[in-house]
């Protein structure tokens, strides 16, 4: 079996984080990732450049921050054409709900609210229907200590139970804002076992699920719906074949 390619779809670089884009990319590469998405916060107002070189992909992304659920749909529409990965900064019940109900959103990040895990059966079901992936944020296990980490772990447990029940896609992300905040994929898988994630699930969350999201956002204008695509004749291409 070929080695899986790992992706981290939530990384912040300068000016959002402390490390520059180059430092983040170099570190992620060293740690064994096959690609990352740079998702700076939308209110820091800078879109990083995407690039793809020598087997390492850097995707342009954004983490939308909004305090008003009804405005969120507006900014989702505004950014959808500009970026590849569209993530929403969760953490508020209204925002979580708006994010999972919008099929244009790719990822809902850290949905945990101060009161609970931020998801329930209704939200999990619409996340599954609209194919919005829920991200498990490893930074809250690495950087936090004491009670706050305990809460994160128990929220992750609840989210995982809902995700399994309703078949919601989920991701493991570092949510790192400086290069030392990144962790290697295998370390992330080990951290994920702390809240009961199986090895196979963690592998999916790091490789297949993000690859699926990337495939989805990269498909062209000819795509109609799952399984239906317009195929155009390419006369120049045909000629080339005849010769």
């Amino acid at each position: 079996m070929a080695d899986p390619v790992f992706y981290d779809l939530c990384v912040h670089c300068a000016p959002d984080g402390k490390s520059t884009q180059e430092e983040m990319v170099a570190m992620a590469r060293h740690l064994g990732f096959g690609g990352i998405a740079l998702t700076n916060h939308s209110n820091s107002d800078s879109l990083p450049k995407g690039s793809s070189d020598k087997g390492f992909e850097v995707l342009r992304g954004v983490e939308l921050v909004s305090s008003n659920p009804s405005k969120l749909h507006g900014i989702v529409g505004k950014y959808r054409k500009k970026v590849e990965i569209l993530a929403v900064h969760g953490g508020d019940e209204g925002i979580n709900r708006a994010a999972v109900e919008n099929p244009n959103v790719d990822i809902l990040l850290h949905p945990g609210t101060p009161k609970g895990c931020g998801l329930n059966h209704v939200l999990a079901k619409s996340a599954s229907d609209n194919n919005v992936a829920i991200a498990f944020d490893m930074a809250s296990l690495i950087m936090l200590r004491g009670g706050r980490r305990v809460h994160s772990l128990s929220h992750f447990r609840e989210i995982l139970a809902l995700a399994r029940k309703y078949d919601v896609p989920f991701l493991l992300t570092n949510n790192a804002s400086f290069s030392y905040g990144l962790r290697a994929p295998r370390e992330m898988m080990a951290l994920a076992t702390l809240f009961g994630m199986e090895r196979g699930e963690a592998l999916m969350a790091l490789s297949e699920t993000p690859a699926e999201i990337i495939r989805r956002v990269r498909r062209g204008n000819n795509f109609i719906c799952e399984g239906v695509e317009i195929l155009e004749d390419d006369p120049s291409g045909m000629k080339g074949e005849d010769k």
Partner: protein
Amino acid sequence: MKILPPTQRTNKRYFAFELIGGNGVDRSDLLREIFSCAGSLIGDRGSSECNIRLLDFEDSKGVVRCLRERMDMTRAVLASVTSVNGNPVMVHVLGISGTVHGATKKYLEGCTVYSPEEKP
């Protein structure tokens, strides 16, 4: 005391790791940090189950021993190490082996520790 017969011994695994950003960190500093992280993440009971031991540590490279059944937990503890003496560090596991010799030979010999400050 007589040593245990081989069948009675516990199975262990050895993590070969590099400490990124760990210039000038010595063994006792790292040891203290690992045990404090283990204490806060999995508690004293969990730590005792893992049987974590820092074997050698030199030039930002080292070997950690743990119980075979607690590999994931130990790895999670190593991942939760964020700083030593106030400087940011990262423990990057290079490989796992069943013997110290294997871990050192296969993963540590001839490897240079990655440094984010230097351009590759």
